[in-house]
């Protein structure tokens, strides 16, 4: 079960891609953090948050997440340049158009 030693330095393209996956990993955490921001409003004085304003905030964050995820997935969808395609497809060649 020995793995080939991991490459230490990557060419620019592979390096970019790795940072892209880092971004893809960070995105849900940032999203969760932003979605929890309303908790801070509730902790304030007794003039509670307004549904309309809160809704605008939530939907704005939501929309931003969608746009960023869309941009990231456009790049991540391409095959990884520094990884060979899956060796064992087990005869599973069905692909969508």
């Amino acid at each position: 079960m020995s793995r080939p030693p991991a490459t230490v330095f990557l060419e620019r393209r592979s390096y970019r891609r790795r940072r892209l996956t880092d971004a893809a990993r960070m995105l849900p955490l940032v999203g969760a953090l932003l979605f929890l921001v309303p908790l801070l409003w509730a902790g304030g004085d007794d003039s509670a948050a307004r549904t309309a304003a809160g809704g605008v905030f939530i939907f704005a964050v939501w929309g931003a997440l969608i746009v960023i995820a869309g941009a990231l997935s456009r790049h991540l969808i391409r095959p990884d340049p520094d990884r060979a395609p899956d060796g064992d497809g087990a005869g599973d060649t069905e692909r969508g158009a």
Partner: protein
Amino acid sequence: MIGFNVLVLVCLAYAALLFVVAFAAEKRAERGTVGWLRSPLIYTLSLSIYCTAWTFYGAVGYAVRSGLEFVTIYLGPTLVMVGWWWLVRKLVRIGRAQRITSIADLISSRYGKSTLLGVIVTLLAVIGTTPYIALQLQSVSLSFSVFSAEGGAMPDFEALDNTALVVAAGLALFTILFGTRSLDVNERHHGVVTAIALEAVVKLIALIAVGVFVVWGVAGGPAEMMAQIDASKIAEWQLDGGRWATLIFLSAAAFVCLPRMFHVMVVENADERHVAVASWAFPLYLFAMSLFVIPIAVIGLSVLPGENPDLYVLTVPLALDQDSLAMLSFLGGFSSATSMVIVAAIAVSTMVSNHIVMPIWLSARQGGASMSGDVREVVLLSRRISIGAVLALGYLYFRLSGGGAALAAIGLIAFAGVAQVLPALLGGLFWRGATRRGAAIGLTLGFAVWAYTMFLPSFGDSFVLSAAVLADGPWGIGWLRPHALFGIDGLDPVVHAVFWSMVINSSGFFLGSLFSFPAPLERLQGAQFVNIDDHVRNAPGWTHSPAEAEDLLIMAQRILGPAEAQAVFEAEARAQGKAGYLPNPSPDFVERLERQLAGSVGAATAQAMVAQITGGASVSVEDLLAVADETAQIMEYSSQLETQSQELSRTAAQLREANEKLTQLSIQKDAFLSQISHELRTPMTSIRAFSEILMAGPMSEADQTRFSTIIHDEAIRLTRLLDDLLDLSVLENGEVSLNWQDANLHSVLDRAVAATSSMDGERPLAIRRDARAEDVALVTDPDRLAQVFINLIANARKYCDAEAPELRIEVTSGEAGVTVDFVDNGAGIPKASQSMIFEKFARLTDQGRAGGAGLGLAICREIVAKLGGDIGYLPDQGGAAFRVTLPAAQAKAAE
């Protein structure tokens, strides 16, 4: 005004459309032109079964009751999909590599293809799904009742019941028709997926249409809408922080763990890239689904203040005389309910059939899967019955619960129930140390806590838990109260139940894993799941005992169908270079076959079936150890062999060398003996001849003197020869004792020169020396050293062939020692002979001039070696040149 009959007609027409679409998709897939049936768009739309009737109708009611909190149900899935690189990608990869058929199969497969875990997760799924199906039936029948009420005829409960029954039966028919058409190795249902994608579009359009109508048609625009929201009852956002965070977490967990979600997300996935598209497209769908919820709620509150807010999506258009919009909205709700029920029924029935029915069936007939009967038929039949049973259970639940408000709360309860799978799932995917025992403990504990704090209390005080237990805890133990475990009071019941069930579940899972030891198969599977990106290989479920290829073929035919099984076997046989249908049952092939079968009947069942034929039920530690030992032994043995063969060749080379030396020595010895006898015989002959002459008679005095002198000389020569021989043998045997003392090189050379000049010889030899350079103190045996020098000078005197022979003695003292060079101006020694002049009896020129036996240089070499130095011939010095090197240590010590 839409009559009840029109409604039924539309409903039937819509159902017929769904059947046609599903049928067409199946036909298309059968022709092999999958095309857009498996596009990212269809995949994304199929995920929308997350939005059930509970969310379609219920979200508005939820918003009326708790404002923005309804949105948490969508935020969790959004985060999961946006973070697809973490979890969903890995799930899909594992699902494809291991041919996972359901979430129970995933858990069972990860933990060593455990039947027990499969059963636990299946039970959890059935308990979590049944009320949910009941909820869908309720919402459909409620929406029917709305239209009937509008039509004037107030429906009684009996009619509601009948509606639900008809819907349930219709759904069962559809699901059985398209969900169990065939046993697909990939467990993909093109017809069903296409139909639910269509339904996804319908419900999205319906909700958006109602939303657009209320915002622009009723409120008069977005700005006015915002103003209305601000003026409404729900303008204040009563945010409960605990619930907000808990519900986001809960919906995220349920999104992954719900059997139906797992089915469309992982099992029906055809391409990993579809997930990338769905990562933004599905959140967008949810975004669109929830965008108009608050506006609809606000308008509903103002138009129909007293009515059931759960049906505002339907009743608001009706109240405002938008019949066709209401019809569309009805179809949207109908779509939400039916698509959820269909997929849930497929997912749960697959689990029930693979993890409960098949194991029982297999163990009931110990004869083995190859005995008789068609396994395929059994699997399909068990699935069909399971689908029917699941829907019947849902209907029964709906009837027994009375369709009241209790059902409305069941959504979150079901979420929390299936979320109990999360620790085992995540642990199995990211932690290799997770074990089957840990997973079983965690699941059981979490399930128990969930049932005690959430599920059972949801029935009120009439079912299992009495009012007394709910209020004071069992047997009056206060800290065991279902809604205040360990005395923590005042928490929201949902937060309380989720918190405790997840904490206890995770702790049990973690500790159970820490304190148990996984079986070999578990460890293999664990490594494969956790490191799915590194290697996509299935764990072998068997070790030795070659299976009969024919038995395997018979069994595979029963599950995969004859044509497909034969194709698989034929391809394998061809790959192995054999003709016909029967390949060698190599471990690789059996493993691949097992995985193919797993796609139809689940990993645990497939393993059990293959194991029945191959004989080896599973890998045991002993097997693995034996294999490892054997391998280690073989490796050690071969490395030993290698060493030995290297050693052998080394020894052989040494032997060859020694043999060569011995041969040479033998030749040398022969030469030596013949030389010796020759050398001895020459003087002996002359001694004998002259002594015979002397004995023969009287002769003159002069002759007598002459002859006796010759005899004397020859005797001396003989003696010298014998002395030399003795000397050499003593030196060579190392028996010589050296007389070490302080000496000066100059005086030693003086002695040597004096000794040679006294020799009788007609050839004069000029000796050039440098007295100052020669003044070097030495610790040596001066007599022996002088003997060496004498020999060298005598040689020069004898062999130098120049007109005026001349010998230069050059002394150089340095760090490395003292070198004494003896260089004459003669012709020198030919190159070919230079290497052998130090050998015994080596003589270059004719016998007469030699005067010695040719032992001189051999003796010199031995002496100098004994003195710790070296003697060699210096080529290309303009004559014969010898260099004596004496070690520095001795030179230094004397200084």
